[in-house]
């Protein structure tokens, strides 16, 4: 009989022996591309005068900083390109640099427009029973 669930998962993870899916560039190149993307996004974010660390009690992540949302966005987008097996030139290095710069620009200029802050800053605390 058709075992749909097993077949789907088996097909999706068929080439996934080394935890790197069906990417054609080597493991070292992938690690290098990730490091370049992280460093590039942090450096460009610092050049654009985004503060390095978030504000002190680490509870309110709507304040953007160079450490928290910028490298996450960069490696997330880079991962999507890698698993789609689109690695442009020089084993993905050019792609990593472009994505790092673009994610820093996104965090600086578009972040508050795409993800606006909630109006009520301490939502959830002012509840009368």
């Amino acid at each position: 009989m058709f075992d749909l669930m097993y077949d789907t998962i088996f097909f999706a993870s068929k080439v996934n022996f080394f935890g790197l899916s069906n990417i054609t560039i080597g493991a070292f190149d992938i690690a290098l591309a990730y490091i370049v993307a992280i460093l590039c996004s942090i450096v460009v974010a610092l050049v654009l005068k985004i503060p390095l660390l978030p504000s002190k009690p680490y509870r309110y992540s709507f304040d953007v900083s160079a450490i928290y949302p910028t490298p996450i966005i960069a490696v997330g987008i880079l991962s999507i390109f890698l698993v789609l097996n689109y690695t442009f030139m020089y084993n993905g290095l050019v792609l990593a640099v472009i994505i790092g710069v673009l994610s820093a620009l996104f965090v600086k200029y578009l972040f508050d427009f795409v993800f606006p802050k909630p109006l009520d800053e301490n939502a959830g605390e002012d509840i009368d029973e």
Partner: protein
Amino acid sequence: MNEVIGIIIAAILCWLNFVIVDTYFGLPEQPGVRGASIIGKDIEKRGGDIAGGFFQGNVLCSPDASAGTLLASIGYLLLGIPGGIIAAFLVFIGNRLCADPGYAGTVGSLTATIIIFLTSFIGLTPEMFIVGMVIAILTIMGIDQTRASIVLGKVAKKFNRHARE
């Protein structure tokens, strides 16, 4: 590795991962969203701990380290290490859409990806982590909420993140 033993080990690792990350980033201290506060106060009324109640409410209402661990293991199963990182990125977007201030979800899924990668050398597979994470969530949400909230309150006190201090 034997599947049952692997699932037990994976469940313990998942439980430690998401409880430690969530407690460190202050889930028991304050309700991040509105529903979490209601659940926390209701659990306290039934004889539980307010910090554990806030913890359970935050786990239920918005993506944090528990959802991050589950999504990271699913992403790792399908796409490998990049899948875990994509899961972290999607959890980040989910946090923004829920208006949830917090770092726990993204950090939790990144640490889960690292744990799954490291334990893959001793034979644990991502499937075991998916089942283990479901069991781990069941132990704090499904079996006995008030007793689980007392345990979570003790963990929060140990990390100095209790709501009443």
